[in-house]
């Protein structure tokens, strides 16, 4: 039972970030160092603000957390200083809270009842989640949970992003022999190479993989499934296959000057930067001293922004064709508990750079050497149609962060399961594709989405696989393939 007056006694406070000037000089996480006891107290006070709602919207799938995190329950346990119990309750629904506690945009906080009248007043759910997870690892209470008995069935999981890892962990714990296939050299998928290190320390991935490993999950990196091994091979070798291959088909813009040197996909930039951080040698796309323009106002754009700051770019401009969102919630357009359509200012935005709205790139302008020199942009309407005069923005490096279009094309798709019009893999209510024994989850099914959705789908698909293999399952399924968030549409 929560402290009913907690929210009246405490205001929302987030753990402090390091000063901008300091943090942009390195790749470490931006959180300021804080004494553990003080941090615990801060987090406990914040957890005390949770009201233990009769209807915890934060916990609901349609508005809050797709994982169904038992947020009020672990908030209360944290309030009562019962960190180990909180970790158990947290891990009951979430395989990787140390990831989501850092990089989830936290729809739970949008849906928090305290955000009803003031979106900035929500319980700091994400920070509490992170604190519980960090506490648990520090206390050594995150231990391998190998299955009590083996089923003798085997599963191949393709892709080691959050969806694949979640499915793999659930299936391993259910007693199946699971092998994870990863195309890259390191495990983690987008967590590893898509997310900048200042948002999430990559060591966290290794630490978690170690737990999976100890539980019996096997991993194979550098395997481009579809090519080698082929899907058919996997289907022959394993009793079931889970495709968690992400939605890596990036959108492109077919504009004049598109081929100029200095025009890159955002993902190219981010992946290369991450490899650099991992010690794989300097990135070929460095922003140091360059005038950077990021095209696209979403999260990937923001990641490029933070990375470019750390590359010490000369200037950074982020363009968005959409109107600037309001600073406060528009009750008609995005009423609580929906994620509010308001101007989001990430820590990367706080670090600098310029944002421009209602502008669309018309063409890229190069110099004589075929290097990008500037962008010609114009004011546009909601349909990206030009409504104003063109003007130039000087630019050496343009990063295209304009979204993804389903599963990356390749041989996997050529002879693989049926896809949807959106380029993602189709499946039935049991997550099975039209290929028997082949399941899908994560972005590969849903399209580019949040890490919590990836984990939720991984968990749910694991139940589908387990049922497929054994005829029944006790694994939880937080979502169904047709789960959708609430909208006013």
């Amino acid at each position: 039972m929560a402290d009913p007056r907690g929210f009246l006694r405490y205001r929302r406070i987030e753990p402090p970030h390091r000063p901008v000037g300091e943090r942009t000089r390195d790749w470490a996480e931006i959180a300021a160092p804080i004494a553990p006891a003080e941090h615990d107290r801060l987090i406990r006070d914040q957890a005390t603000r949770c009201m233990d709602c009769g209807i915890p919207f934060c916990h609901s799938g349609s508005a809050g957390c797709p994982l169904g995190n038992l947020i009020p329950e672990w908030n209360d346990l944290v309030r009562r200083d019962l960190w180990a119990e909180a970790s158990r309750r947290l891990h009951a629904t979430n395989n990787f809270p140390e990831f989501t506690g850092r990089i989830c945009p936290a729809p739970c906080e949008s849906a928090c009842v305290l955000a009803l009248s003031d979106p900035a007043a929500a319980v700091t759910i994400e920070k509490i989640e992170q604190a519980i997870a960090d506490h648990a690892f520090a206390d050594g209470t995150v231990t391998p949970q190998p299955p009590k008995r083996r089923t003798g069935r085997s599963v191949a999981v393709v892709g080691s992003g959050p969806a694949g890892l979640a499915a793999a962990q659930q299936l391993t714990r259910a007693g199946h022999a699971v092998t994870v296939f990863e195309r890259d050299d390191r495990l983690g998928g987008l967590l590893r190479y898509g997310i900048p290190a200042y948002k999430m320390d990559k060591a966290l991935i290794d630490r978690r993989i170690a737990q999976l490993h100890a539980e019996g999950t096997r991993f194979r990196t550098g395997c481009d499934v579809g090519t080698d091994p082929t899907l058919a091979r996997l289907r022959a070798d394993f009793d079931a296959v889970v495709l968690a291959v992400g939605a890596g088909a990036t959108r492109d813009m077919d504009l004049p000057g598109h081929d100029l040197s200095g025009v890159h996909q955002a993902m190219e930039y981010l992946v290369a930067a991450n490899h650099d951080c991992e010690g794989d040698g300097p990135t070929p796309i460095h922003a140091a001293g360059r005038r950077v323009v990021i095209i696209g106002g979403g999260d990937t754009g923001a990641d490029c922004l933070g990375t470019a700051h750390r590359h010490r770019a000369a200037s950074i401009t982020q363009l968005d064709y959409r109107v600037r969102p309001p600073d406060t919630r528009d009750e008609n357009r995005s009423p609580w508990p929906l994620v509010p359509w308001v101007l989001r200012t990430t820590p990367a935005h706080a670090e600098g750079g310029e944002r421009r709205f209602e502008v669309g790139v018309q063409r890229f302008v190069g110099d004589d050497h075929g290097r990008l020199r500037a962008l010609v942009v114009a004011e546009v309407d909601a349909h990206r149609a030009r409504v104003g005069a063109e003007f130039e923005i000087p630019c050496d490096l343009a990063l295209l962060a304009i979204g993804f279009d389903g599963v990356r094309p390749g041989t996997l798709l050529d002879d693989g399961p049926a896809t949807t019009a959106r380029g993602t893999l189709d499946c039935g209510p049991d997550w099975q594709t039209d290929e028997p024994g082949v399941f899908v989850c994560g972005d590969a099914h849903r399209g580019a989405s949040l890490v919590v959705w990836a984990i939720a789908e991984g968990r749910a698909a694991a139940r589908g696989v387990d049922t497929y293999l054994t005829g029944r399952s006790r694994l939880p399924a937080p979502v169904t393939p047709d789960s959708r968030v609430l909208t006013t549409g």
Partner: protein
Amino acid sequence: MLYSAIPAARGLYDPALESDSCGVAAIVDIQGRAGHDIVVDAIRALQNLAHRGACGREPATGDGAGITLAVPAALFDAVTDFPLPPPGRYATGLCFLPRDPDDRARARRRIENLAAAEHLEVLGWRPMPVEPERAGIGVTADGCRPHIDQLFVAAPAAAGVRPGGLDLDRLVYPLRRRAERPGPDDAPAVYFPSLSARTIVYKGMLTAEQLAHFYPDLRDPRCVSAIALVHSRYSTNTFPSWTLAQPFRYSAHNGEINTIRGNRNRMRAREPALRTPRIAGDLTRLFPICSPGGSDSATLDEVLELLHLSGRSLPHAVTMMIPPAWENDPTLDARRRGFHRFHAALLEAWDGPACLPFTDGRVFGAVLDRNGLRPGRWWRTLDDRVVFGSESGVLDLPPDQIVEKGRLEPGRMFLVDTGAGRVVPSDELLAGLARTHPYRHWLRAGQVALADLPRPDARPRTCTATPQAHRLFGYTREDLDVLLAPMAGTGREPLGSMGNDTPPAVLSPRPRLLYDYVTEMFAQVTNPPLDSIRERIVTTTAVAVGPEDNLLACSPEACRRLLLPGPVLTADELDTVRTLTADGPHPALATRVLPALFSADGPSGDALAAGLTALCRAADDAVDSGFGLLVVTDRGAGPDSVPIPSLLAVSAVHHHLIRTGRRTRVGLLVETGDAREVHHVAALLGFGASAVCPYLAFDTVRALAVAAGDDPDTAASNYRHALVAGVLEVMSKMGISVLGSYVGAQTFEAIGLGRDVIDTYLPGTASRIGGASLSDLADDARARHSAAYGESDSGTEELDSGGIYRYRRDGEPHLFTPETVFLLQHATRSGRADIFARYSDEVDRLAAAGGALRGLLGFRTGVHPPIPVEQVEPEERILTRFATGAMSYGSISAEAHTALAVAMNRIGGRSNSGEGGEDPDRLGDPLRRSAVKQIASGRFGVTAEYLADATDLQIKMAQGAKPGEGGQLPGGKVYPWIARTRHSTPGVGLISPPPHHDIYSIEDLAQLIHDLRCANPRARIHVKLVSGVGVGIVAAGVAKGHADVVLISGQDGGTGAALLTALAHSGTPWEIGLAETQQTLVLGGLRDRITVQCDGGLRTGRDVLVAALLGAEEYGFATAPLVVLGCILMRVCHLDTCPVGIATQNPELREKFTGRAEFVEQFFRFVAEDVRRRLAELGLSSLDDAIGRVDLLEPATAVAHWRAAGLDLSPLFVPPVDASGGRPQRRRTRRAAPPAGETLDDRLRSAAADALTGSRPVRIEARVRNTDRTVGTLLGAEITARHGRAGLPDDTVRVELRGSAGQSLGAFLPPGITITVTGDANDYVAKGLSGGRVVVRPDPTAHFAAHTQIIAGNTLLYGATSGEVFLRGRVGERFAVRNSGADAVCEGAGDHACEYMTGGRVVILGATGRNLAAGMSGGLAHVLDLDPVRVNRDSVHLTAVEPGDLEPLRKLLAAHRDRTGSPIAAALLVHWPCAAARFTTILPVDYARVRAAEQRSEPATAGAGGG
């Protein structure tokens, strides 16, 4: 049922639920001088009680009236054509026989044969003259009228003398009982109102007026008696009968026996052990002692008769059955305690409100129940007669003839022995009874207290609280977090708020516990719930367990008992009990443990049945082996054995032992892992266990305490305290005060249990829609078992979430989900019909998936061709049928309260003030006022002005979320503006008592309806009931009480605060209650005179239509409009922390309120449109056409739920018929006939015309009598209507009355009226006094000293807000209850004076009863020569009169002296101020604090009264 118009059970109507209540009176000549005038006076008294009886559809058919006389031998000598033995040597009685001559002949022949078999001599039959035409009896009564003959029998002479009197009564008793039982030869059964050598009863389905007209005997001057006892019946039901009219053979009963089910079960269980030398022959020919089909009063009389005829005096037998509250009375002497304790071992108390006069022809006596919930008054006259009556003024006695008058008091017996020619003082009588045997000695030898048993060697005990055990018994995280932890921490069951929107257990997708299938019954209207907190002195939770002896004997063996301090035992204590062995010092209490387990293999239902059979066989074996205590245990489960749900195990054993005649030979205890909530323990006790050891729960709270760093012993002790206090609360809801009587009382109704479960294992439990089978229950138990013992591979060790109190995705389904709340709010805020359609579809889908019973009902669309929606009546007409639920200003904020009112006023619907008054600023404002004003038990803010402003007045008898319970507004929510509206003190918590203290019976409700009608003749009067078995019959009583509207609330209704047990486990869905109400009203021909409203979780147009088809004309919504205003079901209403500014008074939070009246309007328009669309689909053009059309409902085809297979909803669809054969009326078509005739108030109104118009003072003199009820209120209403709150200048209208004023004298009287009665007054004087003045003083010619005598009855000044009352004499129970601002003086008071008082100044110049100032939180009482032990000090302290109070006290004394001529007041004033030292001030602690703070800050305004 013989000679009755009671129809057979049909649909949801069950005649077994009929109950009654009434008026009684008696005339007794103390010297035993028989006279016809006594008969005449008694009949006159009966007629003066006519208003307490009731009439059904026809005024000429009464509910029943009758008279008991000593046998008038001279009359019978004269009218018989055969010789009679000397008086007393023959027995006689009326005999109700078939009208058909052949049947009659056969019946008489059978009686004669039986007489011969009983060795009795039939002296002859006298055709009883009756005059139905002269009496003018109604068609219904005449239709079922029996032929009546009078039988005379005698016993053969032994030694030349025929046996007579009591001896003869013992001989004819078997004859009568056998004759009344249907014979094997198919001869029709008959009924004898009495058959006795000593008394004779004349009774029938008559009105009080008709009785003497119907029986010419009663008018014959030769009909003489020294004792005449009369009774007038108000059967709650519509269907009275000739046989259930009263008096019965020995008693007449005004009240209700709440424990009747358990009493009957136990009597049946006792039968095998019954033996008495005083009744000849085999007693089995008399069984069952409790005749089937009898009323509770009839059963009570049957047992009383048995106890009496088997050797106990009538007063002794009565004291056994209705003992005083001896348990907590330190003043009782040891011998009397011994007497009561001994008899408690023999017979449980028959608990419930009762005024029970009784007679055997020689003695006349009367007692009240331990609570004193029925009035009883008596007068002794100069010529040594006693007049007794349930109210004052039943006879016009010249004041100068009265030498003494008094009232029945709880715990004391009033007894006249006409043989000895004296009134036997109560103490003498009871002390005499206590001396008849060495009871104390016997008890010392036979009884053993748990504490006295040697503790077994302390064995290290392994903690049972493992995850495996928790899974095995279905524990959820919620059980741990929401229930157990708070109980262990605080010692109290936690509170919750809002309504319950989860499915009934039978429809739940989760394996619910069997407990969840039974819901607690609660008292409403016909019997009051109790206040177990403030009136703790009448309750006891101690329990004695062990074998019983022959009830009819009196021997030391009868009290071999183990005394338990309470019904919840720890494992250690149970181990101690287990040390009782056959070779120990208490062999009669030797204990055997019976495992309650079943196999994990084989077909589940068969396995469970086999387990139960084995358990019952083991119980048989244990009893036969001489064990005196059985412990049913579910310990010992393992991979192959599954625990039997302990409720099933206990009830199965209990009923099996009853069936096989073994039950009373053992005490039954249960040791279980599944019980953890209050409801669980209550159910185990209610179904037969005497005590419960919830070992797993105890271990769990200890483990939780250890984990949290708390002391495990304290946690366990707190937890037990919470359980026991909670059980007491559950008992109190049913009006049961004694745990021993609650055990086995089965005050539960099942929802969703199939016949196979009910009939075999829970027999006698109402279960009206079938449901889960034994296999289903076994499957659920096995599912839990396999969760515990099967492999766990979910990757988590967590228990299930539960999700009942807090929504969880993997928990119990709810109807309000994140999605539906969002859609509803967005739809009504944006005005988007498409979103509203999504909302409706989703709610209806959730309901159909099993979320609510109504979801399982489908519409039959093909009956009428669909019509275009344009042809359906307009939205505006539908909107007028909508109401919002009662939510008080105080529980919700001014913004929310006003928004609802504005919305409803705009659309022509009605909002409801709730119980908390209304801001005077809103009264009279057509836009902002609440059209419906509620009158609840707290009477907060119920002033004349408030009543006058109402369109509807709603009497809240119960609340869906917590029926049978009161309410509390915690001090923290009593902000100054709330206190002002409620006439209380800011910061001081407010209590609404569980009962209305002016409604202890159905006739009291009729009285309150009448009071309100007088206070506002234009308003409709509602009565709000909660759905529960029998609600239809209460609704019929409400209709007969001339209410305009009856509201049936579902158990899912909301609340600002309720105990979780009540929220989850009390009441039933409205679908059942509404259908039962409709069927019963139609059956009784009452439907056309009352409007039926329905509420409880209505959310969509579909809900409205289901309610309409089931019979409701109007529809209330509460939670849904709140959600529209922004409520997100935080469920913290009780904490004042509502984050959306609705259920809070905190200004900071109210800032966050975003609701607007327009949203609410939009909601109702959407719903109305939805209703129109659905009506069109059904081919109906108006809601009127839909009301009661159950033929358009059918079970939904899509019911896929596995456990629902056994559900049978067809009782809901039974088309009602009219019992009289008329065309069934489906809805209201006429106004309730207001009681005819000019009242005293009508005359007062004309006489006061001058004052009303010109404010010119007038003085009116008149006679008054007890039938003049609510005197002054109509006149007051006129004044309020013309002059508002301020009324008229003081003393403008002076009404001088002489006589005995009827009930509710001066109710709601506004300023400017003074009513002075010279004589006396009945109950409820100055109820709701609103500024007027009431004076009652004795007649100057009276012989007695006024201050020693009773001047006015019970429950005076209830909810008074201002004004003055002066009473020269003593008054009854609960003087100044909930007074919140009036000043009053009396000269002595009964128990519970100043209870719940929140304001005003009360002066008591005489002795007080017990429990003075219980729950008093405001105002002051000054008591002369106070006996401090009488004070309940929980919330008050005692001080000398403070200087600032001296002058107000003196002024009141002076006014009392001047207005009443009180010599006491005069004497005190002569010695003033020295006399002030004799007063003690009772000062509520909270009030003192607030008063002190006020005096510090603004000394000028701090005055007494707070109002």
